[in-house]
């Protein structure tokens, strides 16, 4: 298909003007007149975003631009946790539309309704899908406590938890991505959907969503693509399900805050599973990071959903998503499983019909593998020898297909190929 042109480019410059001009020049060198541009930066470019976005948009005013901040990315050129990347598609038999809904944490339904009103594609082809980007959970800034994932004091922690329901009105707290994908899948039943939560360098303090020349902190950005090219959405996870588990016996009404497990105080009982003593805040911090590798979760529609911990406040365990089942199993992130499952995922694709691959993967993968992320890249490089690909690492991955239903997952990778 000679008229399908696509390109994935990167810039490692620091200054916004040089970043934008490098990306623009690379697209121009490939004679691209993009129908759509996806742009992602690491959080290091926070102060440069305005100029990067406006420069690229002024060069390609008719090309809708969508994206956000990520913890890192892999392209054909390498693996990066600092830099800017952009994917452009130029193809005549393709229609695109973008839309934005604000205050996503306060009122996700309203944000989706706003998007739906503005997503307008006149000429529909047979193959339709959505990409959605929204902010990850942000640790609330509690007066006199600050932005803390761990509050050791039971009294202070319990008081802080009481403020959580109000946090969504301030656009802080949970990402609500599980609610978003559920509602989007109901509104767009015949579309495939993949999405992800924008993030910083996993400090969970702030993140940005890009919409044309603007960037936002609490918005849902959606891209709809309709084309005559078939697309494929596939995903996999990277953990083993362990035998050990526990029962949630007391949970908040919104199912985000576990107060008791096995009829005992949640945090203390949880630490006991690991024979961990709460002696030192910094070690507790490390414990918190280790939980990424031993999360717990529940099964829904044949997929295991991790309940990623957002914080330990007093005796409460704060979850980033709703605990939709009280019976939890421990899961174990395995790099071996990640490599094998991703390899299987790639081998099951029909390579002959692929022109480009866009993928959203969990930040934990790149954080865990560190410099060994290049071994992961090799899987893609070996498979997509001359096909542009982009993998962005985000804080939560959403997927919807007619066959598999809707899921908001962690420690997963979802591929979109077309």
């Amino acid at each position, binding site marked *: 298909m000679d008229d399908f042109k696509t390109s994935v480019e990167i810039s*490692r410059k*620091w200054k916004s003007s040089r970043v934008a001009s490098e990306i623009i020049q690379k697209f121009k060198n490939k004679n691209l007149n993009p129908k759509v541009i996806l742009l992602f930066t690491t959080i*290091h470019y926070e102060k440069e975003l305005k100029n990067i976005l406006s420069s690229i948009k002024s060069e390609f005013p008719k090309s809708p631009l969508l994206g956000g901040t990520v*913890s*890192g990315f892999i392209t054909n050129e*390498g*693996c*990066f*946790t*600092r830099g800017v990347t952009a994917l452009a598609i130029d193809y005549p038999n393709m229609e695109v539309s973008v839309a934005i809904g604000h205050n996503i944490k306060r009122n996700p339904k309203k944000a989706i309704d706003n998007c739906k009103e503005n997503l307008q594609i006149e000429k529909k082809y047979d193959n339709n899908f959505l990409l959605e980007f929204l902010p990850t959970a942000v640790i609330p800034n509690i007066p006199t406590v600050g932005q803390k994932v761990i509050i050791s004091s039971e009294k202070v922690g319990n008081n802080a938890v009481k403020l959580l329901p109000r946090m969504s009105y301030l656009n802080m707290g949970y990402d609500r991505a599980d609610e978003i994908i559920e509602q989007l899948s109901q509104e767009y039943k015949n579309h495939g959907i993949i999405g992800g939560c924008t993030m910083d*360098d*996993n*400090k969970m303090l702030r993140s940005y969503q890009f919409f044309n020349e603007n960037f936002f902190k609490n918005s849902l950005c959606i891209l709809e693509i309709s084309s005559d090219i078939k697309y494929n959405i596939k995903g996999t996870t990277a953990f083993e399900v362990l035998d050990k588990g526990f029962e949630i016996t007391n949970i908040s009404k919104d199912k985000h805050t576990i107060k008791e497990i096995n009829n005992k105080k949640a945090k203390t009982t949880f630490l006991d599973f690991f024979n961990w003593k709460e002696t030192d805040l*910094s070690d507790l*911090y490390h414990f918190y990071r280790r939980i990424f590798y031993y999360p717990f979760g529940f099964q829904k529609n044949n997929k295991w959903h991790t309940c990623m911990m957002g914080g330990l406040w007093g005796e409460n365990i704060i979850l980033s998503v709703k605990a939709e089942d009280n019976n939890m199993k421990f899961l174990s992130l395995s790099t071996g499983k990640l490599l094998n499952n991703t390899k299987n995922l790639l081998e099951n694709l029909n390579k002959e019909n692929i022109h480009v691959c866009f993928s959203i993967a969990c930040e934990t993968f*790149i*954080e*865990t*593998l*560190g*410099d060994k*992320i*290049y071994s992961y890249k090799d899987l893609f490089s070996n498979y997509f020898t001359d096909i542009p690909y982009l993998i962005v690492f985000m804080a939560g991955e959403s997927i919807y297909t007619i066959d598999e239903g809707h899921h908001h997952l962690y420690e997963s990778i979802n591929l979109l190929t077309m």
Partner: protein
Amino acid sequence: MIMSDPIASVLDDLLKLDDILACMVARQNMISVMPTDGTDSFKPEINKIWDIIHRAMDDVFNVIREYSQAGLGEMEFRLQDYEALFYILPDTENALVSIIPALANKGLLEVEMENARRQILDLMDFKT
């Protein structure tokens, strides 16, 4: 001894990351390449611990010298609230060294350390 401005530029880039407090290319008893502004470009908080870290680094280079030919790739140690990461440059007794806070997101930094090592190796190949 490695002396190259392009390598110093690679170090300058690494130092722009908030959690890279100091970085250099070094071997036992010798710093081979420093960032362009030398130790002045190190983050100020490293000053209070620099002497002891520097001494500990020399001990680590004993091991690097012994095992770099055997394929030793990386080493690290934690001292007080800091960690030193050593990315060995194969077939030399040199390593790219970074000092980071112990609570930094090491995984993400390691990716950029690896990129820096690859850039330095490319530059060294070019020189020879």
